[in-house]
């Protein structure tokens, strides 16, 4: 599955549109990580555990999006966007969406 956040796949031509595809996942931080992050919060700086957690979650959202596109018979997703929202205390929703297309 080719993905890009541009209007078209560079170097290729879109021959068919399938519509919007999306994938999302809600992740919570586990307690151990949260305690460590709480300590790190004192001195500031990067919260490595959260960085990994969010990038894993974003990867999962993108996988779900690409399964959806695959089941439609598309071979690429253009104009991919991301959205993050805090849905509950200590949990975040990672959402990825784009337009499934066939390119040549």
């Amino acid at each position, binding site marked *: 599955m080719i*993905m890009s956040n541009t209007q078209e796949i560079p170097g290729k031509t879109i021959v068919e549109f399938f519509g919007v595809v999306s994938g999302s996942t809600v992740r919570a931080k586990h307690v151990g990580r949260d305690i460590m992050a709480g300590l790190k919060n004192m001195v500031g*700086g990067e919260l490595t555990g959260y960085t990994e957690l969010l990038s894993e979650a974003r990867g999962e959202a993108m996988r779900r999006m690409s399964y959806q596109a695959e089941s439609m018979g598309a071979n690429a997703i253009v104009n991919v966007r991301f959205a993050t929202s805090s849905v509950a205390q200590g949990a975040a929703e990672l959402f990825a969406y784009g337009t499934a297309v066939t390119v040549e």
Partner: protein
Amino acid sequence: MEFLSFAIAPIMLLGAWISGGILERRHLKSLLLLESGSRGVLAVTIEDLPPDWHVESCELVMGNVVISQDYFKRFAASIKGIFGGNIRVLEPLLERARREALIRMKGMAHARGYDTIINVRIETATLASARGDGKGTAGVEILAFGTAISLTNPRRALPGA
């Protein structure tokens, strides 16, 4: 015991101020090093390519970082917030985080054999505190992403790229 509870807050502030400063300097040093290392990857926010660039393949690349302000800076910002205006103490960390996210994005592109990233976007999201009273860990996530491309013809040398 009475004295202790009064003494803890200033000690925490001082500790956070000193260690926050040390970490900041260390991070700035590593950023300079990494930025000079990732100079080979050109990242631009434009979407349309120059007509003489012929793209071979492309891929979505991204880099993220979650950061939080230290205790001292949050305290200083809450004081400054009373008067309003430019809260300068909070700016350096966000700037450092954006640079770090860009470096990670370029690193991902480089690792996969790409040397150009187009349509770069940088997003900022606030993560909710894990505790109901709002005192738990709250962080800010910076995400940089774009479309990495490889060209069949070598791209024209650009100044600073």
